[in-house]
């Protein structure tokens, strides 16, 4: 019987989709365990932790992101049907959504203007480069929409996707403390706010930590914010004299 040398075996494995798929799941399990061991603190979000673990692993093992993604794309693909599935909790809570339609739409507009305005204002004050500015602008929108918008107004699409994810994890970390500070206890309000400011991350967080009502409103906010921002952002960017 012939034993294949270990380094040859590694060359085969590191290029195989199976490895990236397996390490993604393992990193997620480890991250959830660590988060639980820390008492479920929102400051160390399991997703952020899993991403950090995986980046560390890929750098150590000298695996390119493109190679990793070949395997991990099977998980990534499920984001599409999962987004469609958000219609289910939305349908379950349709009565409440219909009753609150105008407050929700208004709050959404206010939230978007705050998000984009404060982002552009702060980044300009801090002296970010114009390209960074335009890439930052759509950061509170779910990544597929943000990438499209960034491209439209002259930012860098793939960096926009990364900033969107950072925004998501920051939003999840800050959310619970801010809600306590402002005395916001209503699940629907918490969910909607998280979905608006932290898109899919916030929605996932709302489902996992707050409950189904929060998840439904969060999904609604995510979709609504995406739709409205696509129309509003080019206008706001003009107001700031960019684009």
């Amino acid at each position, binding site marked *: 019987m012939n034993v294949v040398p270990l380094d040859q075996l590694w060359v085969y494995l590191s290029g195989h989709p199976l490895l990236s798929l397996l390490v993604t799941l393992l990193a997620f399990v480890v991250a959830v365990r660590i988060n639980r061991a820390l008492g479920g603190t929102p400051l160390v979000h399991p997703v952020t932790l899993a991403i950090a673990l995986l980046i560390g692993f890929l750098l150590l093992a000298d695996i390119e992101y493109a190679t990793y993604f070949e395997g991990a794309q099977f998980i990534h693909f499920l984001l599409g049907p999962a*987004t469609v599935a958000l*219609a289910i909790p939305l349908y379950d809570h349709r009565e409440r959504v219909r009753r609150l339609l105008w407050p929700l739409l208004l709050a959404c507009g206010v939230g978007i203007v705050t998000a984009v305005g404060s982002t552009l204002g702060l980044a300009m004050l801090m002296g970010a480069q114009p390209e960074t500015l335009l890439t930052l602008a759509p950061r509170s929108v779910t990544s597929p929409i943000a990438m499209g918008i960034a491209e439209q107004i002259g930012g860098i699409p793939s960096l926009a996707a990364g900033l969107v994810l950072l925004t998501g994890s920051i939003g999840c970390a800050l959310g619970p403390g801010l809600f306590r500070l402002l005395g916001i206890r209503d699940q629907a309000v918490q969910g909607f706010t998280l979905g608006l400011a932290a898109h899919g991350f916030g929605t996932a967080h709302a489902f996992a930590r707050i409950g189904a009502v929060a998840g439904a409103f969060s999904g609604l906010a995510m979709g609504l914010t*995406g739709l409205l921002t696509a129309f509003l952002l080019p206008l706001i960017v003009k107001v700031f004299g960019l684009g």
Partner: protein
Amino acid sequence: MPLIMGMSVLLACQFAGELLARGLELPIPGPVLGMVILLAGLVIRGKVPSSLRLTGEGLLRYLTLLFVPAGVGLMVHARLIGMDLLPIAVTLVVSTALTLAVTGWALERLQRRQGPGSGA
């Protein structure tokens, strides 16, 4: 076969959404349009089929995991982020906090103003 039925419905809606987005050159991603299509379908049908609920809620329970592969992509942009690190970091944290606070406060207010019977 409830899982297969449910998944087929979700994928069909996503597919229709993609077609619509591409066909009309809308700046909205296909899955978001797919969500709107499924919602319309559920309203017409008047209930959520159990097969769809099983698949959909299963996916939503692990929604956080699904973001991991895209997030790892940040490693590609390490240098770009490093160039503007301070402005990016401060902007992200402060602006996200501001957005959360303003939105939450506004919705809470607006909801209360709608009067009794509308609160939770």
